[in-house]
């Protein structure tokens, strides 16, 4: 959504502040203590209030203001446990309100939510607190020095005398302070400044008087008339005034009148507050400077870096250079590769965002759901600083939310049941994320009752999704059935996890990211759902192999060794599977042309065997020719391409051709 720059900035900063707020509240909730967070929450609310008022977003501003007031009071008060909980709840309510309103603004809708209820309840709570609690009020005595100006006044004819009554604008606010500012600044150009009301500094109520009756000043000046008049022209916050010059006589008369009422030269001390430098070690968030960047620019940058890698390959692996001995060129190209590698790392990291916020959202969901489903559940987070591409962050939230809600609603048993089977009263959900190869693996593991394999199978069989007997399918294939549309073995679809957001939608979302879902479960012990998402700009060091007209790329990491065709004996096992003996051990042989039904070379003289390994299993692949080694950019498979065993993606080669990237695990026989 496109917004004007001010809104964009407002949404960005306020969004960040709300996130930080939530972090603080979750922390204080688990400690059941807010003392460490009070100052920061106060400051954040103050900022949100200020920003929102600027954008004329009154409801948001009001809520922030109330909480600011509340926290201001909390700084000098100790709270009972019950009250702490209430305060934290208010904060979460405010956070929710902010989020809803910000969301509306994100989508160019008016932030029309009413804050009245929330504001009122906070006000009530605050006044209750003030009535009950012991309040330590800091006593501050500050008086100010009102004196004639310090400049030496020469009594000569250059003097001008004047008086002025100032009337402030309706919304001027703090009129007494404004009045003070005016006379204070006036002293730069005038002397003997007298005014009514005179207790503008000590008495806030003078603001009202000034609003109603105006602020009266009389003084004299050595400066030119125009300078004096100029001062009173276009004064900010002044609606109108009646500035006039006085004759010396008029001035003296007025002076006598005024000084008759005012005590001359009230000399008081200026008590200066001890200012302490607050150096707070903010352990949770080191101060970083950020800039906001258009996502499209970043996307373009990423594409370009991808093309750069390809272009570099085109240069380095160029036909023209074959057979030449170019040591200087080699050195230079190695340097080039180093620089490009670093660039690619950094560009990738630009779009990478840690999962922290998303995981935090999940904490929030677990917290909210605990009360609703009446179960005590602990969410353990691991690897929340793992980074993923920006668009993954946007699309992974809902699927995770659904999976976790499922776990809480259906997976984890109620307290009684758990205790009766010897489990801990508190259910555990483990949410973890980590990088594996060119992917991110996010896992949700619960210690609930697990999936009912038989029931799922029956339902799938009923729907015609599975046609053979139960033992013909692997556990995973059966569990995977729950990702089909309309598949819910629950008798009633619960409010939280059912209704429209089924596992099938989750599966589609993950698929649109080019990822996949794995479901594992053990009855009575729990369920583990793993989501695998490829990193966007994955670059692989690959070995290119030709099979007929097709080119395949194997990640070099997975290659154990390779050798030419005629050195080893090919034998067949009882099931007809070809095997090759390598150093006394038999390994399955997979002829790529047969496996993929591609026409291979008729002449196998350049044929090559490549031994690949995955999880301690080794397999040999046979290709027509080894083409070369190259760094390639991994492009994920379009959703319109049927998934084929072993093929995990495409790669653009240096000469513009497209190669299929192989993943050895797809060939493993077990």
């Amino acid at each position, binding site marked *: 959504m496109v917004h004007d720059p001010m809104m964009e900035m*407002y949404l960005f900063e306020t969004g960040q502040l709300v996130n930080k707020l939530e972090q603080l509240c979750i922390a204080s909730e688990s400690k059941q203590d807010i003392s460490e967070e009070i100052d920061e929450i106060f400051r954040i609310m*103050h*900022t949100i209030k200020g920003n929102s*008022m*600027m954008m004329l977003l009154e409801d948001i501003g009001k809520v922030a203001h109330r909480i600011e007031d509340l926290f201001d009071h909390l700084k000098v008060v100790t709270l009972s446990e019950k009250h702490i909980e209430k305060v934290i709840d208010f904060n979460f309510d405010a956070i929710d309100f902010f989020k809803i309103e910000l969301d509306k603004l994100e989508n160019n809708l008016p932030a029309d939510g009413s804050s009245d209820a929330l504001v009122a309840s906070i006000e009530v709570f605050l006044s209750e607190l003030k009535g009950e609690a012991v309040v330590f009020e800091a006593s501050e005595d500050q008086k100010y020095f009102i004196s004639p100006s310090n400049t030496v006044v020469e009594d000569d004819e250059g003097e001008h005398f004047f008086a002025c009554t100032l009337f402030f604008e309706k919304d001027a606010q*703090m009129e007494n302070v404004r009045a003070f500012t005016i006379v204070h600044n006036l002293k730069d150009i005038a002397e003997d400044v007298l005014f009514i009301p005179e207790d503008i500094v000590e008495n806030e109520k003078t603001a009202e008087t000034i609003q109603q009756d105006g602020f009266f000043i009389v003084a004299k000046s050595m400066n030119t008339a125009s300078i004096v008049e100029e001062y009173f022209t276009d*004064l900010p*916050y002044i609606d109108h005034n009646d500035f006039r010059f006085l004759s010396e006589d008029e001035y003296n008369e007025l002076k006598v009148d005024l000084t008759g009422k005012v005590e001359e030269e009230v000399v008081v001390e200026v008590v200066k507050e001890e200012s302490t430098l607050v150096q*707070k070690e903010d352990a949770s968030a080191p101060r970083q400077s950020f800039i906001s960047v258009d996502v499209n620019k970043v996307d373009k940058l990423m594409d370009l870096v991808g093309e750069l890698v390809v272009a570099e390959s085109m240069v380095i692996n160029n036909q023209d250079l074959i057979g030449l001995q170019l040591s200087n060129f080699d050195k230079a190209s190695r340097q080039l590769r180093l620089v490009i590698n670093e660039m690619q790392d950094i560009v990738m990291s630009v779009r990478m965002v840690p999962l922290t916020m998303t995981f935090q959202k999940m904490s929030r969901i677990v917290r909210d759901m605990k009360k609703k489903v009446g179960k005590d559940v602990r969410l353990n987070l691991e690897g929340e600083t793992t980074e993923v591409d920006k668009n993954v962050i946007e699309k992974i939230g809902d699927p995770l939310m659904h999976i976790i809600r499922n776990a809480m609603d259906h997976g984890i048993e109620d307290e009684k049941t758990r205790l009766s089977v010897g489990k801990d009263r508190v259910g555990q959900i483990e949410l973890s994320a980590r990088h594996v190869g060119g992917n991110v693996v996010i896992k949700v593991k619960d210690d609930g009752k697990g999936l009912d394999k038989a029931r799922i199978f029956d339902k799938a069989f009923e729907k015609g999704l599975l046609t053979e007997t139960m033992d013909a399918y692997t556990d995973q294939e059966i569990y995977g059935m729950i990702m089909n549309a309309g598949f819910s073995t629950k008798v009633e679809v619960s409010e939280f996890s059912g209704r429209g957001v089924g596992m099938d939608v989750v599966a589609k979302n993950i698929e649109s990211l080019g990822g996949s879902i794995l479901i594992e479960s053990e009855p009575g012990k729990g369920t583990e759902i793993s989501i695998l998402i490829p990193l966007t700009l994955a670059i692989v060091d690959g070995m290119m192999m030709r099979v007929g007209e097709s080119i395949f790329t194997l990640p070099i990491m997975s290659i154990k060794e390779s050798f030419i065709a005629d050195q080893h004996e090919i034998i067949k096992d009882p099931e007809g599977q070809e095997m090759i003996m390598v150093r006394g051990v038999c390994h399955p042989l997979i002829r790529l042309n047969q496996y993929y039904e591609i026409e291979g070379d008729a002449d196998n003289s350049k044929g090559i065997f490549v031994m690949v390994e995955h999880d301690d299993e080794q397999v040999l692949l046979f290709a027509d020719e080894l083409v070369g080694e190259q760094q390639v950019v991994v492009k994920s498979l379009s959703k319109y391409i049927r998934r084929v065993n072993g093929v995990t993606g495409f790669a653009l080669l240096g000469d513009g051709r497209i190669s299929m990237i192989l993943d050895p695990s797809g060939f493993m026989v077990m």
Partner: protein
Amino acid sequence: MKRVLIVDDAMFMRSTLKMMLRKKEYEVVGEAQNGIEAIEQYKKLKPDIVTMDIHMPEMGGIDALSEIIKLNPSVKVVMISAAGDQKHVLDAMQIGAKNFIVKPFTEDKVFQVFNKL
């Protein structure tokens, strides 16, 4: 072209002010997020005008104002305050701020005050 230093811990406020000032002959030469940065930036840039938010972490506007006035008693500082912050604004005026603007403010108010500096 009057040179201005904007001091506020809220990014939003800084950019709003910046956008407003750009429309007239004010050149925003720097920004600071707290009092400490404000003093550093002042020393480095020697701006003609400084807008100073009052409540900031690390070091607040009043303290920063104090220090900057010591460096240059004739510097023009405009305080930016929240409504109802009487005490702090009064302190600031005493110490030497030239005027103050209350949040939320409009462009006109900003220029009204700036024109009179």
